[in-house]
């Protein structure tokens, strides 16, 4: 198999992994904290805590993860067909 495909397969798995972790974070905070009665909500920067952690912190964490992954984990490959010559 084209060695570039090994890299592509690995990175697709990373994508699925990040999406699952993202979903768990998003769901956990939104419905874990959000299902309490409204009177028990705390407010961070004015936002209800469930929303602050799930949507705002979640978004920031995902952005950091993506920056980190693209910088240190993903590999450069050639898309051209001559990139195949070295297989």
């Amino acid at each position, binding site marked *: 198999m084209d060695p570039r*495909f090994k*890299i592509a397969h690995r990175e*697709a798995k990373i994508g699925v992994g*990040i999406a699952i972790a993202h979903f768990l974070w*998003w769901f956990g905070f939104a419905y874990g904290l959000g299902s309490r009665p409204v009177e028990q909500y705390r407010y961070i920067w004015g936002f209800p805590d469930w929303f602050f952690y799930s*949507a705002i912190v979640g978004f920031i964490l995902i952005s950091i993860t993506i920056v980190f992954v693209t910088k240190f984990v993903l590999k450069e490959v050639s898309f051209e*067909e001559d990139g195949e010559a070295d297989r």
Partner: protein
Amino acid sequence: MNWQVIAPLVFFLVAIFATGWIASRQRDKSSGFLNDYFLGGRELGGFVLAMTMVATYGSASSFLGGPGTAYTMGFGWVLLAMTQVVTGYFVLLILGKKFAILARRYQAVTLIDFLKARYNSPVVAILSAFAIVIFLFSAMTAQWVGGARLIETVTGLSYTSALFIFVISVLVYVTTGGFRAVALTDAVQGTIMVIGTTILLIAVIIAGGGVPNIMQDLLTENPNLVTPYGSDGNLSAAYVSSFWILVGVGVVGLPQIAVRAMSYKTSRGMHRALVIGTIVTGFIMLNMHLIGVFARAVKPGIEVADTVIPVIALDILPPWLAGIVLAAPLAAIMSTVDSLLLLVSSSVVKDVYLGYIQPNASMKTVKRMSFGVTAVLGTIVFLLAVNPPELLIFLNLFAFGGLEAAFIWPIVLGLYWKYGNKYGAIASMVTGIGTYIALHFYNTANGNLLDIHTVVIPVVLSLIAYIVFSLAIKREVYRY
């Protein structure tokens, strides 16, 4: 007419024209007309491609409909909108490198080229061309209507003249400039979307007296607005979570998004697009939907959800600034429409005309066909949008979820599963669209089955169809 609002909008249109014109001058002779017109010669950089992905994806619904619903439903809808962040990285990590490499090996210019080569089947190609033309054509008309309505609201022009201005603007740069013009104008439009939402969010927070103050107003009006369950408590966790399929991971199945993953020159550009795409999508979605919720505290009682954004902008901003901010939804609509127009015309020219009608057409004919078909399609859409027929509105309902259910597995498993074959692909497409339409009727009549969005079950069924038919009929290993 309010010229102070209109002036920035006119300036915006001029800037878009200029970008489109510059792009059309840059046409690259070396890589061949089709490759250049429909894919930008595969040489665009990471920033432009990230922005075109975000801008194509961000449409009338993210700038008008979505914030309008957030206005009615409260924070639950903002939570739902944030499921879209996943598209920013998921599409490129999944389709990513393998798609880019294979598309080049197959010399594919369109998504249909890719499917045709992977499955070696004209039936797959015709089915996909059919689905793309029908559904995206309707989707495009709906966006067109949204754009005209917005111009109508802001400028006070009649609907038809507003539509005319809108259509002419888009047609000129798409027809002359092709994909490169679409991508470059998308980058400008995406940038305007970021700036516009930022200004409006800050303005709404100031007008509401700060976030804690706004939250107090919302709690006083209806405490449900700050829960994840919607203003009437009907927004269930299962329903909101099913949007992870519809507007999150399922987006890999949308042809207008998938085709963008083919157009990268280098993996470096793709990596940059991953980062920019994720951050910009999340930023825009969070801002726009927060604006929707906050607007409720600032100006309660807006009746028509789609007008929340224009009304609040005109209400709290000085006119010239409102003009700049309202260029953002216009940009969002334009950047969606231009891509759809190009995609539909590429399906007609490349996949139908060159594929089946006249495979040996000369370069000159192809060129004339491409310009001609793009212009004719645009004109038909204009005529339809003047008075949208019922059928079109109906078809548009399936444009997003229906296309995902049809294409997600033929694309994804076509890339990664060696047993995938044309029988699986055909079965998967037919099952996806068929069950989507059937379930849509069921859900409209009886409420959502299992309390989840219509898209989920057809996506699961089309996966099963793909696997079963691939293994059952002429099972063999595909060599990538």
